[in-house]
């Protein structure tokens, strides 16, 4: 979280060239993770993360500090990902077909990692539908305030809260399914 920290983009716009590099160091890994978890391959995820910062550079002079720099960057990242998908990006690797179409049963790799809790969680998240995955990404993994998540997803903040717990329940169920193995 960067809240409470000085707005690095505002500092860069004011002439502090090092602030931009600091912003890249802080947010670059998080943005790359965002794209990876949305389904991008590693190289594409890094390219898209770079695109986020290029857009930030191009609009730095127009940037008005609002204390929500992380939300600003993630909003750009989300738009870039949507554009990438519209242009036919093929790196998508799962979960996009929706919960009813997704196969909750673990594949061979997941079976091998059955006892690895972190791997179970990653696999369970990847098996969720795109909307649920995006919600957990913004609210849980990126830890944006519910209000900002509501702005990005264009839903009321109360809806965000309820959907987050609904998504966590869904994730819990998916983890239990993976843990129990392909008994069905």
């Amino acid at each position, binding site marked *: 979280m960067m809240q409470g920290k000085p707005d690095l983009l505002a500092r860069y716009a004011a002439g502090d060239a090092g602030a931009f590099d600091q912003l890249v160091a802080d947010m670059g890994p998080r943005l*790359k*993770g965002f794209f990876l978890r949305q389904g991008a391959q590693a190289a594409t995820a890094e390219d898209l993360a*770079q695109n986020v910062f290029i857009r930030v550079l191009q609009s730095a002079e127009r940037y008005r500090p609002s204390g929500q720099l992380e939300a600003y960057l993630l909003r750009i990242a989300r738009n870039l990902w949507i554009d990438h998908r519209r242009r036919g990006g093929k790196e998508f690797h799962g979960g996009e077909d929706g919960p009813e179409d997704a196969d909750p049963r673990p594949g061979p790799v997941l079976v091998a990692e059955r006892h690895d809790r972190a791997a179970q*969680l990653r696999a369970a998240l990847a098996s969720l539908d795109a909307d649920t995955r995006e919600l957990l990404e913004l609210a849980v993994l990126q830890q944006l305030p519910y209000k900002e998540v509501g702005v990005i997803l264009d839903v009321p903040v109360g809806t965000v809260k*309820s959907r987050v*717990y609904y998504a966590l329940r869904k994730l*819990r169920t998916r983890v239990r399914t993976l843990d129990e193995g392909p008994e069905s």
Partner: protein
Amino acid sequence: MNREEALDPREREELDRLAAELRAAHPPEPLSADFVDRVHERAQRRWSLRGAMHRNPLMRVAAALLLVSVVGAPVAALIQVWQGGGASRPLIGLDEPLLPEVEQSEREPMPDVVPPVPAWDDEDLGPEGARALERTNRLRLAVASWETAGDAPAATGLPAAPRRWSEATPEQLWGAFVRRLAAGDTGRVPEPLAARVRALWQDGDAPTRNALAGWHWVLTGTDSGAPQPRAWSGAPYAGD
């Protein structure tokens, strides 16, 4: 009541723990070593018209000029067509230069002067004829001068003409001269009048000669030139 409020504290705790585990399972992804350099390199390489216009005021001016030059001519043509005014063809030619009216009115009339030479080779005027013609010409010059700058009040209240020219006084001769000028009479000067002028001129004092100056110039041609009518109007006469 939303779903969050429906959670019992134990489940809420469990879900919060799950969220923390989920975060822990997703550590930050390491970036390639040249990530920042590539961002800068790509940002410099990515030239966009919008970005260039935003950064460079000269680009904005150039774009504005380009837009005006590209759009201006068709728009002007459309406006011309819309207004329905066919382009008036310019007339090609030369205008005859006209002199200003004032200048024309200020032109002096050209007096009809006949030089004192025979009109035809076989005509012999003789000394007397040539002298008479010279007098007539000078009288014409005097009339022309009067018409150009004549003083109309000077032609009123003149002394009456004498019964005989041989008895005429200088002011009567002066009045006769002015009346001729006002009437434009350039006819032959009677010899008795000429003789009377010569006689009075010969022994005349300054006022007398002043009154006879016109006739004396017409008859002899001597003096500096044609007397000016304005100079006569206030001249003291012999009778004053």
